[in-house]
């Protein structure tokens, strides 16, 4: 039963196997780049899907554009730039690092750092408040049976 569930979950997270695109390039190297780029570029109409996964007309047109650029010998970087010039940074799922995007990339790191510092401070405060170890345990082990009166 569990195996079935796991299998079902596995099938659901395999988007590449279900890609919409029927077109393939002959050259395997180009085809691989085409696949990768198609997953990197956002379908501007259904904005949460890549052009590889989106069934709408615009996605097909953009895939065609990528194919033609690849066949014309453009590099991946040139193709990304070509798309960014027309649609802006938003067409890339992974926005390229620039002064405008810097805060987008750095803020999570910054927050993580703040969180770590805060956590460290809490741990240190707790350590400072905890009773120091030796004195108490010495008394109890050395004075077994005694109710607190000093041994005579």
């Amino acid at each position, binding site marked *: 039963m569990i195996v079935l569930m796991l299998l079902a979950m596995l099938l659901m997270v395999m988007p590449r196997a279900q890609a919409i695109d029927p077109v393939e390039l002959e050259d395997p190297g180009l085809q691989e780049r085409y696949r990768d780029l198609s997953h990197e570029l956002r379908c501007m109409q259904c904005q949460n899907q890549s052009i590889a996964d989106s069934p709408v007309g615009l996605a097909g047109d953009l895939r065609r554009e990528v194919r033609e650029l690849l066949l014309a010998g453009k590099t991946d970087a040139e193709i990304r730039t070509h798309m960014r010039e027309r649609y*802006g940074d938003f067409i890339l799922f992974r926005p390229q690092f620039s002064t405008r995007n810097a805060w987008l990339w750095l803020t999570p790191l910054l927050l993580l750092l703040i969180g770590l510092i805060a956590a460290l401070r809490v741990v240190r405060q707790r350590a400072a408040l905890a009773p120091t170890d030796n004195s108490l345990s010495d008394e109890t082990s050395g004075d077994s049976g005694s109710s607190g009166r000093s041994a005579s």
Partner: protein
Amino acid sequence: MTRFLLPAGVFALLVAVLFIGIQRAPEKTVIPSALIGKSAPAFTLPVLGSDQQFYADSLRGRWYVLNVWGTWCPECRNEHDTLLEIARSRALPVVGLNWKDDDSAALDWLEQLGNPYDVVAVDREGRVAIDWGVYGAPETFLVDATGTVVYRHVGPLNLQIWSREFLGRLPRASAGGGL
């Protein structure tokens, strides 16, 4: 007491940031054109219902409007009356870009509903639309006399938007009229 000051401060900052984000959300749903301030992409396309070609650089030297539309697009139907009104006002040339459409359907549409365009260029395969960064119809671009894209409106036009965003960007003494 001071122990709570830092987390409370961070929380207040977070609330402020999120609040500002929510306020700005409506404008963020529309993607700004990447062409603003850049040269309008040149193109040569067939003219609808004719065997002539339309050369985009023939428009150089005057302000014009490029309207991307298709008969398959319901919102284009909604803005059609506004386009007719704009054409009647003869404020600016209106160039139509018939996007991923069928010629006879487009011709029927214009004949039945009226033709607001000075010329209609047929982009059957959508290549020119991609050059203009079009991601849906209708879209309307404002281009100045130097051929620079000044503004893009996504979605159907109405006279309010036309007046505020398009006419409002024209220089005082702009020439009117069609092509």
